[in-house]
């Protein structure tokens, strides 16, 4: 019995049918064989896996991660391609990796299993990156770079030359601060989306302000109340469309901010979420502000076309209006634990602190809130 079959001699439709029946790891391996096989895989237009609708529905199709345990990884589809899991000379400067580890998620839910294969890397890091972008039909703009703890083991200047312009940067590491500042210097000017868990700048450093002024789409500062030293002046100079502040301390000038917004401040702002360690005082937040409408508890609050489940845990929601008629919804959200009891909310049980002391405000024109207003 022959062990081989001349795949490329099948009619074109059947050849593609065979490929469509392959699992994603086999497809990735198949694409590595030649230019022809690479083009065949690309022609399938494989879509990314649909992720969890609450927490990761907007995951970019490609993620590059630098971390302490994996080294360097690239994620696409449900596959993680990893390099430098074993120390090698000059890995700091992203020299050609000796080995590559490819890990794929085989199943979902309780039966989640992973399969991992390692083999000698046939390509440089840059070639791997370009290869992945090519077969999934994506441009560099679709990439998110995530830097974890000990990502400073890698030279970020070299990373910039390898991966080029990065639109979406996420920094989860807390130290060293000079690494954080270095990363923002290298990738910052071209970013569209920035998530920064810790503030790498010392008090009074003007570079933080420069970063806030950028015309970002999304600016997410802090995670689980980790960002230090953000105040009203910082918020007022932010030019991002969507802003999240998760503060280590307390943001006590929301009322003042809302009044300034009504007068025309932060014209680009579409969505703002402020998270702090203590609950907000609703009366204080809305003191002296003209309320256009009280939103009933049973009414869904929709941002764009998506229902935001977090509003289900609001204590109150009201519409306010700025001088030019643009309307916004502001809504303080209570801690889940206090509101519903953690045992009843299994979906978010592991994230109780996420909801503690939220004030959630949407600011936008009528166009972005068609189904609410």
């Amino acid at each position, binding site marked *: 019995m022959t062990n081989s079959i001349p795949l490329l001699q*099948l009619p074109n439709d059947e050849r593609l049918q065979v490929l469509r029946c392959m*699992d994603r790891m086999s497809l990735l391996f198949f694409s590595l064989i030649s230019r022809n096989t690479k083009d065949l895989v690309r022609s399938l237009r494989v879509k990314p896996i649909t992720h969890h609708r609450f927490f990761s529905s907007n995951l970019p199709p490609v993620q590059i991660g630098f971390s302490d345990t994996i080294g360097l990884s690239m994620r696409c589809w449900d596959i993680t391609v990893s390099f430098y899991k074993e120390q090698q000379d000059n890995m700091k400067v992203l020299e050609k990796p000796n080995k590559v580890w490819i890990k794929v998620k085989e199943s979902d839910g309780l039966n989640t299993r992973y399969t991992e294969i390692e083999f000698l890397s046939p390509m440089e890091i840059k070639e791997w990156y370009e290869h992945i972008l090519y077969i999934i039909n994506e441009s560099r703009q679709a990439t998110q770079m995530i830097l974890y703890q000990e990502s400073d083991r890698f030279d970020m200047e070299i990373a910039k030359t390898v991966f080029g312009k990065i639109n979406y940067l996420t920094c989860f590491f807390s130290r060293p601060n000079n690494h954080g500042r270095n990363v923002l210097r290298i990738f910052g000017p071209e970013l569209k989306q920035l998530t920064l868990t810790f503030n790498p700048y010392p008090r009074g450093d003007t570079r933080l302000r420069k970063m806030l002024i950028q015309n970002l789409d999304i600016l997410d500062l802090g995670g689980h109340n980790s960002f230090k030293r953000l105040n009203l002046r910082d918020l007022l100079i932010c030019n991002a469309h969507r802003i999240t502040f998760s503060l280590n301390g307390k943001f006590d000038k929301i009322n003042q901010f809302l009044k300034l917004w009504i007068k025309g401040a932060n014209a680009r702002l579409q969505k703002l979420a402020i998270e702090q360690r203590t609950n907000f005082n609703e009366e204080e937040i809305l003191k002296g502000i003209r309320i256009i409408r009280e939103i009933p508890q049973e009414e869904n609050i929709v941002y764009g076309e998506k229902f935001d489940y977090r509003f289900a845990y609001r204590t109150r929601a009201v519409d306010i209006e700025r001088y030019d008629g643009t309307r916004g919804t502001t809504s303080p959200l209570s801690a889940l634990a206090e509101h519903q009891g953690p045992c009843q909310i299994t979906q978010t049980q592991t994230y109780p602190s996420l909801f503690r002391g939220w004030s959630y405000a949407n600011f936008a024109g009528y166009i972005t809130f068609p189904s609410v207003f």
Partner: protein
Amino acid sequence: MSVENAPVVDVDEAAIPVEKKMYYRFESNDKKEFRVSELAIQQSETLNRLVEAMGYTSEDVENKPAIAIENIDGKTLKLVFQWCEHHKGEAIPVDDGSVPKIVEIPEFDAKLMDIDNGLLFKLIWAADYLNIVQLLNVSCKKVANMAQGKTPAQLRRVYLLPSDEEDEAAKRAAQEAQDPRAREVEEEFEERKRQGGNSFF
């Protein structure tokens, strides 16, 4: 081969409605003859249209020559009709275009396709030619499963995939075979370039 000696595919009589109980005769390119139920034929879009267009009666089926299928040999056609008889009456799946395509190979199909890869290759061709959607699905899935757990180097051997260099060489050979003058022109062009000429023409 006479009709009496034709390798008749096993038929589950009870599963066939009375009004559909008509058997067509087909002949492979190596003159092997098969009797196939009308219901089983419905799995093949090509054959179904063919018999509809012919409008045979039961007498026609017996008296007229078997319908020739020129492109498929008897060994392959036997597998095809065995598959069709087993799956007769089943709905024909609609392709939703998903990747990876979810295809389960039933036990019967797995046993049927426990064959030499050369024959499997012919089976896919036959399923394509006769437009039998689900047979194509399972046979392609069987070929796809050969990739599981293989490294790129192993895949190259399993699917007999040429390298870039081999692809280039084959392309050059095909071009030369198509137009022998092309090579001469190319050589002339290279020669002129070496001599420092600015223009070829």
